């Protein structure tokens, strides 16, 4: 049989529970703008009933803390998407910088356009045919040659500079990754000791927030281990953090660029394809820029070599037969040709316009120079076609990356929406809960008051005034 005493203690328990629930609502509202926060709902639990004389008597309710509304699969999926998206947007930024050196020129007179430079250079030889001994026309050949060489080598120099700055950014990112893995290892340990069997609430929030930060930086895999622990590896499978231990990524220079190691293994290539900012930076550094640079090198190498050969196969104004010397500095190998591209000939009279052994008024060699423009001597293409190919290849890469990036951000957005719709704080909802718990608290206190007066009546045995 129930007692008034029991009812009183039951209802004061309900007041405690309501207070706990109100506490949780306050915490939710306080963290409403915190993107890393996962909202909690009060964990209401009916108290164990009492079994007395064959009857079950309810014994109220209590709130055992809040339950974080989290879907770890969804979180992980979101983090993976963040890795892809960060890689592609970092790559896109690098490519956008890269393509500025190759902007399409609107007219034929655009300065600094390598395509126009190539055409102007070979055209200057066609003009020389009209008067092979003319000094102004010879000066023009040297001037267009200098423009071509200058523009190509400045492109190459800025590509190299971009590569260096990407290299530095990659180093910075790796330093951030290393500090995050250390802190993740510590949180891991705390979670394992404090909450081995259930969601660790705020601690888990912190872990997820750091995983999100890490996902911006580098491609990772997560493996759940015993006691709610987490192992983190690179997408290539190199362990970065496990239980309470972090394994830092070390750096070392290989072939002029920074390579990255974990425990002696070179993981640079797998990091490049792994994702995160680091993936984008390394893809740009090790693939996009070297591809363009190699094309420019090939162009500079072929043009310099062919033009020099032709100049040494004719007769110039100062009486050289087949030994007029080089117009461009002679490259010894393809790599690096673009940056070293420059005009070494200073005396315009040493341009061999006449055919070998012929009089200085002849233009047979100038014809040979001009014909180079339509000869496929750069990797099987004419110089102009080769440059045009370079432009379309690079342009296609930029365009693909842009499209890919748009698609990735759209799907990232969807996942973020999904995650937020489950886990983030809705003020409307909290307002409703607040009202609900307030009413519930008010009701419980009313019940308490009434029970109190009932108790007083019982103590006074009907005499109203004895105990108030």
């Amino acid at each position, binding site marked *: 049989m129930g007692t008034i005493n029991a009812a009183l203690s039951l209802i004061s328990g309900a007041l405690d529970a309501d207070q706990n629930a109100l506490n949780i609502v306050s915490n939710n509202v306080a963290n409403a703008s915190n993107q890393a926060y996962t909202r909690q709902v009060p964990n209401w639990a009916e108290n164990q009933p009492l079994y007395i004389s064959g009857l079950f008597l309810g014994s109220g309710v209590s709130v055992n803390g809040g339950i974080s509304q989290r879907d770890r699969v969804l979180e992980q999926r979101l983090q993976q998407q963040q890795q892809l998206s960060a890689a592609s947007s970092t790559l896109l930024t690098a490519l956008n910088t890269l393509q500025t050196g190759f902007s399409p020129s609107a007219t034929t007179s655009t300065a600094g356009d390598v395509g126009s430079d190539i055409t102007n250079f070979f055209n200057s030889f066609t003009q020389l045919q*009209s008067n092979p001994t003319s000094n102004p026309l010879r000066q023009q050949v040297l001037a267009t040659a200098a423009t071509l060489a200058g523009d190509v080598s400045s492109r190459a120099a800025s590509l190299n500079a971009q590569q260096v700055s990407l290299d530095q950014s990659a180093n910075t990112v790796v330093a951030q990754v290393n500090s995050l893995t250390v802190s993740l290892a510590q949180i891991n340990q705390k979670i394992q000791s404090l909450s081995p069997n259930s969601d660790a609430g705020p601690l888990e929030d912190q872990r997820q927030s750091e995983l999100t930060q890490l996902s911006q930086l580098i491609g990772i895999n997560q493996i759940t281990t015993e006691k709610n622990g987490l192992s983190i590896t690179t997408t290539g499978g190199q362990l970065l953090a496990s239980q309470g231990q972090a394994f830092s990524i070390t750096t070392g220079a290989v072939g002029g660029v920074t390579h990255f190691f974990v425990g002696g293994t070179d993981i640079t290539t797998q990091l490049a394809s792994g994702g995160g900012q680091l993936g984008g930076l390394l893809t740009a550094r090790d693939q996009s820029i070297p591809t363009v640079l190699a094309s420019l090198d090939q162009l500079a190498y072929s043009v310099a070599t062919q033009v020099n050969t032709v100049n040494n196969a004719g007769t110039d104004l100062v009486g050289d037969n087949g030994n007029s010397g080089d117009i461009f500095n002679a490259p010894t190998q393809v790599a690096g040709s673009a940056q070293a591209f420059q005009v070494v000939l200073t005396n315009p009279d040493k341009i061999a316009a006449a055919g070998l052994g012929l009089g200085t008024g002849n233009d*047979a060699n100038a014809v040979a120079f001009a014909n180079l423009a339509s000869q496929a001597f750069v990797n099987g293409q004419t110089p102009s076609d080769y440059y045009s190919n370079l432009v379309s290849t690079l342009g296609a890469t930029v365009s693909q990356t842009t499209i890919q990036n748009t698609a990735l951000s759209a799907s990232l957005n969807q996942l973020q929406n999904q995650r937020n719709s489950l886990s983030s704080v809705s003020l409307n909802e909290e307002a409703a809960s607040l009202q609900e718990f307030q009413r519930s608290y008010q009701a419980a206190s009313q019940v308490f008051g009434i029970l109190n007066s009932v108790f007083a009546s019982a103590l006074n045995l009907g005499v109203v005034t004895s105990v108030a």
Partner: protein
Amino acid sequence: MRVNPFYVSNLSDALNQTQASQQLLTNEISSGTRVNSIGQDPVASAQNVQLLNEIQRDDSFTQTTSLTTGLLQITDSALGSVVTQLNKALSLATQANNGTLNTSDLKAVSNQIAGLRDEVLSLANTSYQGQYVFSGSQSNTAPFSLNNSTSPATVTYNGDSVVNTLVSPNGQTIQLNVPGDQIFTTAAANVIGVLNNLVADYANGGSGAGIADTASLNTALNFVGQQRVLIDNSITRLNAASSVASTESIQLKAVQTNLMQADIPAISTQLSLTQSQQTALISVISALGSGSLFDKL
């Protein structure tokens, strides 16, 4: 079903996008170019490189032809004058050969023909911009020199027989000069040699081999006329090639403009659409930003 309470931040992403596209469109309008980076349209960018290459080649060839036409016209007018001088020599020789002239007249004819020969010789040594026109590739050397110590006088060719050419954008090879030995001192029609012979024939007041030499002079005259046609042909071909190049250049410029030029009306329309979208988004965001159930508590 629960929704994402932070959906307003998605709207601000959309606002960023409209701003980005506004920036792109304004950029297109201000530059007048549809493609401002190669990533926007790789195919058009590559075509643009090739079109500009052809346009520049055509323009440059048109310039070159105007430089070259001067040379060819000088050559042509020199040969024209040579023909005139030879005609004069021919009529003098014909006069001398009809037997009516006395010794002193014949000597005078000899002197006159010698004068004409010197004229022809100086025409054969014509130069253009400091370069001798008829000496093949040896354009720094006067092509013909006369030795008066022998009788008949002898002429020596100091040039060579190398021909200069100009290659047009569509691959035509146009001859720019005729070496002097092909016009003035060929074995079949040695123009200056015949004149020298005629001078010698009448120098002593007789007529010598005048009749035979006059016939040779006639042959030589015709030959010079034929050689002149070569130059005239070059002028015609050069003009034709130049006009082809400039026509092609105009057409290619039209193609290039079509390819690269911004379509201003279309862009303006897009821009105004983007603006309305932006305005709408801003009002939506400001309306949504205010208010939650807490306002009613």
